């Protein structure tokens, strides 16, 4: 189990009906995205295309291959660019 | 309108070219003579990237007509180093990392050389005001001014730490 937090109450919450925190069974980010898509249709795609994630505080622009430890906190945030 | 024949001494070389009246000296240097070291940042005399020394005076080549150059002596950035021997200002710009993107650098170096030709011992304030017509958006001017002051000291033969 990992804890998923939708930090930005923007676009993503429309998929979860307002939910911002939930537990998901997943060992990789890939599985997590599929899991999210199943549970909240649209959210997985949203996460893949336009969100960065923080795994236990560390920000990944693209965490596709990242492994998730049980009990990890996954925070979904808008992607970050720069000048 | 026929083009005008112009003959000028550019970086020590007798140079002849044809240009149209509305072409600026900057246009001519870049597009006709092929000296692209002088840059166009504004074409209105506000950025100094096109600075050259014309008959001993620092000017913006974008504010001089090509036809006005007839019979003049011009030094551009390409003429600042003596062969492969860099001018002290160029050397100090390198040592002090006084450039980042390097686009305003030719103008700054020409203007700095002109300053030191006229005033070998400028104060920091004099250097800053002299160079106020050379915009640099990368460096905040700090290292540029240090390079110019250091070059001045070296040219005066002072040992610098």
């Amino acid at each position, binding site marked *: 189990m990992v804890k998923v937090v939708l930090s930005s109450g923007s676009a993503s919450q429309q998929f979860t009906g307002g939910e911002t925190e939930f537990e998901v069974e997943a060992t990789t980010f890939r599985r997590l995205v599929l899991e999210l898509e199943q549970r909240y249709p649209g959210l997985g795609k949203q996460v893949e295309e336009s969100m960065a994630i923080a795994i236990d505080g560390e920000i990944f622009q693209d965490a596709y291959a990242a492994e998730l430890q049980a009990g990890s906190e996954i925070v979904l945030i808008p992607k*970050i660019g720069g000048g | 309108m026929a083009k005008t024949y112009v003959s000028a001494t550019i970086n020590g070389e007798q140079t002849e070219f044809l240009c149209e009246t509305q072409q600026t000296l900057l246009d001519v240097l870049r597009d006709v003579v092929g000296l692209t070291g002088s*840059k166009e*940042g504004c*074409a209105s005399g506000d950025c100094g990237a096109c600075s050259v020394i014309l008959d001993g005076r620092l000017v913006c080549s974008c504010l001089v007509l090509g036809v006005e150059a007839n019979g003049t002596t011009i030094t551009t950035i390409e003429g600042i180093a003596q062969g492969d021997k860099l001018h002290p200002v160029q050397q100090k710009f390198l040592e*002090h990392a006084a450039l980042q993107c390097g686009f305003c650098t030719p103008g700054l170096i020409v203007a700095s050389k002109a300053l030191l030709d006229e005033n070998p011992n400028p104060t920091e304030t004099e250097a800053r005001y002299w160079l106020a017509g050379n*915009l640099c958006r990368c*460096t*905040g001017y700090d290292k540029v001014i240090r390079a110019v002051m250091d070059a001045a000291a070296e040219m005066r033969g002072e040992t610098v730490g």
Partner: protein
Amino acid sequence: MNYIDSSLKVVGSRPVRPDGVDKVTGRAVFAADTRTAGMLWGKILRSPHAHARIVSIDTSKAEALKGVFGVVTAADFPDIPSEEAFVGEGPVNFRDLALNVMARHKVLYEGHALAAVAASTQEIADQALALIDVKYEVLPHVIDVEEAMADGAPILHDDMITTGVNPPPTKASNIAKVVTFKKGDAEAAFAEVDVIVEGRYTTQPVHQAYIEPHACLATYSPDGQIQIHSSSQGHFMVRAYTAKLLGLNLSDIRVNPAEIGGGFGGKTLVYLEPVAVALSRKSGRTVKMQMTREEVFRGSGPTSGAAMDVKIGAKKDGTIVAAKQVLKYQAGAFAGSPIGPGCMCGFAMYDLPNVDVVGYDVVSNRPKVAAYRAPGAPITSFAVESAMDELALKLGMDPLTLREKNAAKNGTKTHYGPTHQNIGFTAVLDAVKAHPHWKAPLKEGQGRGLATGFWFNIGGESSAQVHVNEDGSVTAATGSPDIGGSRASIGMMVAEVLGVPADVVRTIVADTASIGFTHLTGGSRVTFATGMAATQAAEKVVEDLKRRAAQTWEIPVDAVEWKDGKAYPAGSNAGAFEPLDLAALALKSPRTGGPIAAEVSVNAQGAGAGFGAHICDVTVDKETGHVTIERYTAIQDVGKAIHPSYVEGQIQGGAAQGIGWALNEEYIYNDRGQMENPGFLDYRVPVASDVPMIEAVLVEVPNPRHPFGARGVGEVPIVPPMAAIANAIRSATGLRMPDLPMSPPKVRAAFDARG
């Protein structure tokens, strides 16, 4: 491998950059410096109106003009569908990008491109533009961000439905999206606090104002192969966008990176390249385009202007328990202001239990914003750090002490979710406290201000190659345009790994056909991500060199060690052999497996956030309102300075840009929505005599994710200056200046208002 605790010979030194001599002698080739025989000049027709429907465009007269070889309009570009993509500098909608490059149906700001010509001379091109007959139906326009949000405002896009609100609205507005971040319960917490400060702050759009105008040269061959030579922050970005906007294959486009004359985020989009390719395709000739300075101001991206409300509540002892922010960012004509980072960065320096941030992304009839150095952060931080100064005054507390008390540390959970790791903010504040500037007595009439700033920094995809040439010299190639000295820092990391002096390594920037994909130079990612790729490529080369030495000596590879640029037998029992250096190994390379080279591509993660604090002293002329910066110190956690001089240069340059943003830079519009100051005469960037020496103090808290501990450094330094100066003015005069720029008329008016 990780070198953070090893003793370093090259990294941390200050060698001359590889491209230095070319740049001080005028030899360096920037995009506008290339020309080819038979080349045409391309020029763009731009809208004189802030908002208008394009009724018709008649190009027949222009096409008939002698010397004109091609005219294009939106009809020559595919009408591509809305598609979001994330390409390094932020999300981009390709449909918006296409419409920004060439307007279709409607022009949305003065300067919006709607046609282009290719002609044998610039003069003929200008005449041709004048012959293009455009019929406009002028529409009401809106410039100000809050007016654009108001009911009844002219609507730019009748299909723009605000996202981020539930349920979604049913009618179109100029609000592209609403972003909200919540931590704890701010509303409830405000009821518990002893002291509250509230303020309303505004900033104006400011242009990146790189000195080199956008320029490119494009050739479309009859076989569909395309060559582009241009100045950008990412030639792979130019390839991707040009292909997308023209419906071409990436493999058919080769982009050569010219030297880039500054970008600061403003060259992370395309404006000219797709147009030049379209003109070349139509004319069958090479087409060169370069913007005038006026076009740069009217047609390319500034960053957002904003209106902001901020509220902070604290206990008597200075502990902040509640914070609230409402941010309205102006995006220009198309959605995409940096509102997300704006919402995240404002309070990121502090450990706050209850935070409530709402942000609006708002379109209006101005040029589409482009990234600008820490996009979004300087704006929000101007408001927050000004409010922090007011809070310190209200509490009767030293502004540094207030920040120390609430500073974010490792383990601090941010209001946007992530928990800070390996950050150096408290180390930065310690450096402020220890710095002589902070303790120096103020002269009569002077004031001192302090402000801090944060930027995430990013990583992402980068590729690098290391070649050991036949003579043992080394060439390193990357896909990252060198905008401020990255050839030097990349080459130094390679030299460090190889154990050779910096000048043994030549670093170049390879074109899109010569190296793996590399994200653009932005987000302060090059030294971090491209540096990581280059370091790993050098390590592969070292492994290969050890293998070749082992083969030569006929001993096992693990019996070979590499140090100071030579292979040595590891210990006496490995055998007694003369060490082999790069030259010796390169000479034998044909016999030991051929050329010595390695390429590594990475998608670097864990860039490591950056924090900075700026101290500024000012004097204010009460009669004219003129503000003089007397002394300036910028302190920043840089992780590890690879080439300290260029790190200092980034910090000094960012501070100077911030000084311009604070005091004088702004877009001035007339009542027809036309920009009145599109040049360096009246768009007032700082000149050499406007600024003092800027002392850059480097704090080094290593970033464990980078082999040498580096963090991005280019963006943090533009975050604190506006508030640092506002706070210094407050300290000198007692006046709070909540609106940028703090120009002389505004400062004088503030004095008069106080009486």
